[in-house]
């Protein structure tokens, strides 16, 4: 889509910026990357009242243009770099009307870059409720920019905001906020002169940030560095002076335009809620109750839609086997592609439910209370209160969670968080656990409401957290810190979750899973089908010939004969050969060569396990009688002993293997991307493989 004007949304975290972005763009948005860095770039389009189309860019939330993390550093680059492909024509600064003072700091910085600005005064309804009155006309006049009161949640004032965007001036008309040049007069003059910059605040920011800015050439960098030495520029002192000057400007501005009720207010609702939610005892009980409820919900609520999807695919497969002529192509389509597709689609309900919970926890403001409560505990094991979010996010998927560690400013804390996040039970392990637990754990209730299977699953989740904590502690002892860690975090006011955002997040995550994991899963399914359907040399012909001999055709009926042929063919296929090859290594863990095949294929992605099992057992079983994978695995017998393959010991040994092994190509890739060094994913892969083997071995021999 071609846009006539590019608009960037800038604001503090928790100001409703994302909500405004969703309201403006609807589902007409996409997520990409800013070039050269791994920061998500959300863009969308909106129609303006004058008929033009505006491209809206949602920039990461930040408290100031001085970045504290990689995410925040992108804001300055996009706004100030003339050559940046995302450079906006207009900036909409979103201010929380109920918390104007702190919000205005960022506004004054952005305004001083002399980009055309419109102010969206969000949550004006909440400010009204709190008795805050703002003289908007005077406010707008003093700043020299259009100010539009809105409520993004209630979708109020959006049309006026769009009108303000379309009629905004192309040149920046805002009033000066502070005397920027007074902060470092000679340095700013020298940088402006040598780099041909006409904006003093841009020149000053270059002095502060030049070492990390990607758009500066090496020569420009050296020039700035030299000038800093010459004028003995002290970055932190200058920043302190600037911040104090900005706040005194803000105080003066608000003195004339903002009236707060003078009498002390009643205790705020958030404060009352906090008294319970962060209580010494209730706080922790509630937190663990929420976690337990989440997993019970994922387990039970998703079962009905999952069965429905599974049944639908079985029906489609049956129909296709009837309709299409039997042959290798039909088999490839039905037993390869569709079987793999079914293995992807069936897990959408679980992923959607999990992301609904995570998005509600974040939206309400509860997630930051979790961080607040857990910081001391997390610090003991080398993590950071902020590590709680990636770790909990890890319950869904390690890939976005590892990307979210960028909010942790401290290098060591961040590295440890990245290293242990893949240990947390992600949604890709969930299907494997549910499948294996359903096989070996009886489905009945204990103490009225706890389902035994649900408890086993909760146990796996808690186990994963414990192992992550232990490994984090070990890394804390090994790794050396680079800088001191700090923890200064806003506790946002409690709010009702925005159901639109929850739904959008469910949709987005499910889509990402299907598109990204799905591709790998289906590709692996097809490869597997080939591996399982063809064998080296003329082994298959020999098997066919062998079973045509009278000693078999006379003693066995047609059904038994077919099964014997299929079973022997699988054992002699490429997959079987590969499985047999690694069998000696995995025998001590209780695994046979069929499980060996699944281990090999799921090194690309864990989810493949279920698809592999489907393919292996549907190839092995009679193709007409389609049973669900679970039933097939349950009825699988060891051909030598006649005992079931999936005993309690084998199932738990297998779960231990999946709990520890780094079987996810996407995670390896994202760890490399985030650490910019192959050493980290290599260390991670190695330590997880060792743990996986050891844990499986112990589990198998304890339960055998």
């Amino acid at each position, binding site marked *: 889509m071609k846009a006539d004007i590019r608009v960037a949304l800038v604001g503090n975290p928790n100001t409703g910026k994302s909500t405004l972005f969703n309201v403006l763009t609807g589902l007409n948005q996409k997520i990409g990357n800013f070039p050269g860095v791994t920061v998500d770039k959300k863009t969308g389009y909106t129609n303006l009242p004058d008929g033009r189309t505006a491209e809206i860019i949602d920039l990461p939330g930040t*408290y*100031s243009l*001085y970045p*504290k993390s990689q995410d925040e550093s992108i804001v300055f680059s996009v706004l100030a770099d003339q050559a940046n492909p995302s450079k906006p024509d207009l900036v909409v600064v979103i201010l929380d009307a*109920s*918390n104007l*003072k*702190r919000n205005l*700091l960022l506004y004054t910085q952005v305004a001083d870059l002399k980009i055309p600005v419109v102010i969206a005064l969000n949550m004006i309804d909440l400010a009204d409720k709190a008795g805050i009155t703002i003289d908007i006309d005077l406010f707008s006049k003093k700043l020299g920019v259009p100010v539009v009161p809105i409520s993004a949640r209630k979708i109020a004032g959006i049309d006026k905001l769009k009108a303000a965007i379309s009629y905004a001036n192309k040149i920046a008309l805002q009033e000066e906020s502070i005397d920027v040049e007074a902060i470092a007069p000679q340095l700013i003059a020298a940088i402006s002169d040598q780099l041909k910059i006409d904006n003093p605040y841009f020149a000053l920011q270059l002095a502060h940030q030049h070492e990390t800015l990607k758009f500066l050439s090496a020569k420009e960098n050296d020039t700035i560095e030299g000038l800093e030495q010459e004028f003995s520029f002290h970055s*932190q*002192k200058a*920043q*302190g002076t600037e*911040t*104090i000057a900005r*706040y005194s400007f803000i105080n003066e501005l608000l003195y004339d335009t903002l009236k707060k009720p003078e009498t002390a207010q009643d205790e705020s609702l*958030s*404060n009352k809620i*906090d*008294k319970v939610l*962060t*209580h*010494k*005892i209730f*706080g*922790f009980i509630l937190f663990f109750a929420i976690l337990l409820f989440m997993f019970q919900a994922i387990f039970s609520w998703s079962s009905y839609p999952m069965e429905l999807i599974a049944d639908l695919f079985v029906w489609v497969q049956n129909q296709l086997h009837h309709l299409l002529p039997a042959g290798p192509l039909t088999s490839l389509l039905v037993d390869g592609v569709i079987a793999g597709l079914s293995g992807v689609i069936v897990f959408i309900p679980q992923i959607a439910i999990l992301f609904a919970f995570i998005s509600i926890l974040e939206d309400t403001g509860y997630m*930051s209370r979790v*961080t*607040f*409560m857990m*910081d*001391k*505990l997390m610090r003991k094991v080398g993590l950071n*209160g902020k590590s709680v979010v990636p770790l909990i996010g890890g319950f869904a998927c390690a890939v976005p969670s590892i990307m979210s560690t960028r909010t942790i400013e401290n290098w060591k804390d961040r590295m440890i968080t990245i290293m242990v996040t893949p240990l947390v039970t992600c949604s890709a392990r969930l299907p494997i656990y549910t499948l294996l637990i359903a096989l070996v754990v009886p489905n009945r209730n204990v103490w009225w409401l706890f389902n035994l299977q649900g408890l086993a699953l909760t146990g796996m989740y808690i186990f994963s957290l414990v192992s992550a904590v232990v490994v984090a502690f070990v890394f804390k002892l090994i790794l050396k810190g680079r800088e001191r860690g*700090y*923890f*200064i*975090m*806003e*506790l*946002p*006011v409690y709010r009702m979750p925005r159901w639109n955002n929850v739904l959008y997040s469910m949709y987005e995550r499910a889509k990402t899973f299907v598109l990204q994991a799905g591709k790998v899963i289906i590709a692996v399914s097809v490869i597997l089908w080939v591996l399982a359907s063809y064998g080296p040399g003329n082994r298959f012909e020999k098997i066919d010939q062998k079973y045509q001999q009278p000693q078999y055709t006379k003693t066995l009926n047609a059904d038994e004969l077919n099964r014997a042929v299929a079973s022997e063919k699988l054992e002699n296929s490429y997959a079987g050969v590969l499985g047999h090859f690694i069998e000696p290594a995995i025998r001590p863990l209780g695994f046979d060569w069929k499980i060996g095949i699944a281990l090999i294929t799921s090194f690309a992605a864990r989810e493949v396990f279920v698809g592999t099992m489907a393919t292996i057992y549907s190839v092995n079983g009679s193709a007409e009688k389609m049973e669900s994978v679970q039933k097939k695995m349950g009825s699988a017998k060891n051909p030598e002993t006649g005992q079931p393959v999936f005993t309690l010991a084998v199932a738990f040994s297998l779960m231990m293997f999946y709990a520890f092994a780094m079987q996810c190509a996407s995670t390896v890739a994202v760890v490399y991307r985030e650490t910019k060094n192959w050493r980290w994913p290599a260390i991670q892969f190695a330590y997880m493989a060792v743990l996986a083997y050891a844990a499986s071995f112990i589990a198998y021999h304890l339960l055998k």
Partner: protein
Amino acid sequence: MRLSQLLAGQKGIVKEFTDLEMSVKLMEMGCLPGEEVCVERIAPLGDPIAINVAGYSLSLRKREAFTIVLQ
């Protein structure tokens, strides 16, 4: 008197900072000299603390609160 010495519910006014790096970050968040701060609560495990400053809640560790000198 340091901010970390206040108990839940107690108030104070920021006078100065003992740590330059920390001061820059705190001031950005609205915690400036002359500003009133009130300890709202202390985390269940005794650290970090939550303070009210400039009309909102901010959490910080005790070690960080120790760098804030009160009047």
